[in-house]
């Protein structure tokens, strides 16, 4: 088990190095750099550009140097905890990210809880009452949630919430609370705005989760140990929760790996549509404007979380399920 752990930890290092190279290359694949994109945008809208100043900035940040030099500069900065400089904001990257991280956590965690709370009971119920009309209705609802484009749902809900509840459109709080210290009314305003993104982002995830739980559970329910237990007179609910449901949970544990980066990045498209102060829109913007250090460092951070997440989920799975543990040990 210990060698398994050490092995897993060591393999994270080359993985991260490889990811950093890929990220940096891909970000720099489009021609030009942040400033050429910026100039193009300005000129498109008819604004004059001070080319001398741009030249100055390009030299200043070494954008004219060969790519590998830029990469090394960036990578070594990262090692020392320096995430680089955002051209768009004229600020160090870590200052830009700021409390966006908090709001992203907030939205994502609430969404995950919402998803679990809705999906679990429905999933279990559909599996135990397979092909009943309630199963069909719930499944239909779930699919509707999955099939509705979330950005459309977002717009509709925003509009309705504004017309009927007077909630300001977009964002996570009423505008007057932005940049203000926390207070009860600010928290209430956040709560009033939070439910829309949570429902919108949640519905898509809910359907998928219901289906997965239902399928896993159905597999288990037909197994012989369940039949045996039932024959021996174990009460149905106790039986359900003690054996098949636990078995059906494995896929969720292995999901933690992808959950962590998801929590950080949020649902980018919905966040853009709803103009949430989360990290998703910022990343998208950075990528589009080739603000390479902001985008790169942020992606790197997410890659790091993914790697950690996968590690944690492997650990949890090994703890939870002896089969995984034993097989892993054997293959080493």
């Amino acid at each position, binding site marked *: 088990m210990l060698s398994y752990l050490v092995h897993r930890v060591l393999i994270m290092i080359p993985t991260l190095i490889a990811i950093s190279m890929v990220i940096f290359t891909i970000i720099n694949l*489009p021609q030009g750099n942040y400033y050429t994109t910026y100039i193009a945008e300005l000129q498109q809208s008819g*604004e004059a550009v001070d080319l001398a100043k741009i030249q100055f900035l390009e030299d200043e940040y070494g954008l004219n140097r060969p790519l590998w030099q830029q990469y090394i500069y960036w990578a070594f900065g990262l090692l020392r905890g320096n995430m680089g400089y955002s051209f*768009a904001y004229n600020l160090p990257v870590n200052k830009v990210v700021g409390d966006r991280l908090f709001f992203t956590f907030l939205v994502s965690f609430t969404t995950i809880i919402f998803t679990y709370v809705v999906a679990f009971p429905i999933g279990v119920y559909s599996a135990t009452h397979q092909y009943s009309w309630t199963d069909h209705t719930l499944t239909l609802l779930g699919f509707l949630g999955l099939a509705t484009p979330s950005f459309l749902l977002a717009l509709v809900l925003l509009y309705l919430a504004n017309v009927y509840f007077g909630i300001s459109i977009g964002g996570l709080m009423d505008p007057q609370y932005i940049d203000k210290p926390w207070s009860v009314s600010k928290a209430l305003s956040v709560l009033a705005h939070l439910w829309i993104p949570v429902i919108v982002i949640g519905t898509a995830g809910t359907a998928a989760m219901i289906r997965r739980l239902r399928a896993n559970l159905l597999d288990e329910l037909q197994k012989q140990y369940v039949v045996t237990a039932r024959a021996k007179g174990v009460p149905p609910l106790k039986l359900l929760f003690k054996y098949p449901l636990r078995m059906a949970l494995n896929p969720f544990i292995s999901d933690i790996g992808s959950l962590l980066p998801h929590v950080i990045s949020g649902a980018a498209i919905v966040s853009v549509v709803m103009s949430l102060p989360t990290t998703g829109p910022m990343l998208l913007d950075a990528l589009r404007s080739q603000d390479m250090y902001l985008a790169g460092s942020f992606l790197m951070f997410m890659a790091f979380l993914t790697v950690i997440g996968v590690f944690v989920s492997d650990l949890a799975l090994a703890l939870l399920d002896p089969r995984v543990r034993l097989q892993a040990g054997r293959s080493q």
Partner: protein
Amino acid sequence: MSAPTPTRREVIQGGFTLGAALVIPSAPWAKLQETPAFKEEVRGGTLPKIEDRVPEEPAVAELEAIGRPGGDLRILMAGPKDTRMMVVYGYARLVAYTPSLELAPDILKSIDVEGNRVFTLRLRKGHKWSDGYPFTSEDFRYWFEDIAHNRHLAPSGLPITMMPEGEGPLFEALDETTIRYTWKRPNPQFLPNIAGPDPLFIYRPFHYLKQFHEKYADKSNLEALVQRANQRNWAALHNRLDSMYRNDNPDLPSLEPWILKTKPPSDRFIFERNPYYYRIDKEGQQLPYINRVVMSIADSKIIPAKTGAGESDLQGRYLRFDNYTFLKAGEERNHYKVWLWRTGPGSQLALYPNLNVNDEVWQGLVRDLRFRRALSLAVNRHEINEVIYFGLAIGGQNTLLPQSPLYGPQYRSAWASFDVAQANRLLDLIGLTERDGSGTRLLPDGRPMEIIVENSGESTEQTDVLELIRDSWRRIGIKVFAKPLQLTLFRRRVFSGETLMSIDKGIENGLATAGMSPWEFAPTTQQQLEWPKWGQYYETKGAAGEAPSLPPAVRLKELYEGWLAGSSLEDHTQVWNDILQIWADEVFSIGTVAGVLQPIVVNANLRNVPEQGIYNWDPGAYFGIYKPDGFWFEVPETAKSASASSATPR
């Protein structure tokens, strides 16, 4: 200009009368009244009295209605870089355009111009920066000598627009309030540039910036500052803090009506009234009327929805014509009005055949006058107008708009009627008579005539218009394909000659007067999609690109140079007329419709916003020429002012 001794009232710029319209130095104004928002601070002694804040000779605003001070103006913007829009809207310029597009002194008390060569600027006595320091000729000297001529801050020297024929002006600070620039050759671009929405700032707050300048600052202090700001050297720090246009440094003193108070990054920027602003109304109230401008940042796609929910008091940016019905529906419920202003581009969208296309067969064709005319004749502008713009736009060539004094209907209608038969005749005349099985004409080398129109994929509008053009061009045997590209890539392909045709905005300034530069009509920059390489040749003084080889293009360039050298209104008007005639005959770009309407959402209580206006970048500065410092709220909403006064310190 023949008059050898110009007086203050002399006609400047050959055509723009001075002073009379906006600023009458001796105009009577009542005794100055203290601004309610500042009463407390004045009583507490933290702010000087109004008599000591306003210049001795303030600018007196001509307003439709005298207003009452107070209130917050909420606006929506799409990104942190949009803080610069407050410099555009604020529109405090040394010399500014009036709503009738004449140049008049604004920050300046007056300006004397001799033959577009000698410019004597007079400041208002007692004019102060937003932090209370005097605004003097020293601020002009600092920019000219210590910034523009400092090789670290400005490696390439003076801005190109101050260097006619490569020669800069002689700078003289005659006294505290008088500055003179003397060029050897006329520089007619000087004043229009100063009056632009992103102006040529020829002054800087010396008292603030000198602490970051190598020449004035204490070395060890400066080094510490550079270190603390995480910058590489003093020049980088200076450049970063010196953001008159970018407007992202709350510490930088300003002359604008509202000054930034929020340190970026933020999703909500507060701009507070400038206590030392130089304009007052006739009753002696200091402008701006509105206490604060609150700029909320939201994604550009959600801004129409937010505006429709009444979350903006003054919005034009990021609204599009197709949002009109939605916005109108919310008018009653959310207490705003939707007005439609005309936009200023010469054509909403225009097609640009690339005269520098690499493909030789095509190059021969697009350089053929008859071919360009045929393409233009086969565009059904009426249909585009009706289908996409509800018939509210004006069809025609990509040229000046009727509001421009230089406008002639013949320029707009030339080769712009829908006449498929004549277009076909012209194409037959060129010799493109062979057709393939589907009726598409064949090029001389046998390829079918398929034109790929590239665009920057900014909006669906471009593809919609192209869809209509495709139908009508099919009738002259030409196939059209639309190809959206990422903006940078799009431009790169045009510049390198890979693109055969592109669709984009028409000429930017459809409202030009004779005093404005006709650069858009001549090959002067690489940005011009119809002849990028010829433009680049001019821009780089022959170092890159190709010399124009088509006689009319050469002629346009000569005319443009004639405009630059001209010093009188007659010269400039003559040049403009010649240019417009050539432009109309040659159809270098194919216009569709112009004067598309821009929805402007205005809070129902906001006064002095004109119901009909022009929404344009340059000249216009969007709301700038209507001087938002004179906008005011008739019924200051109690709820709003309460929340403003109880606001926690920022």
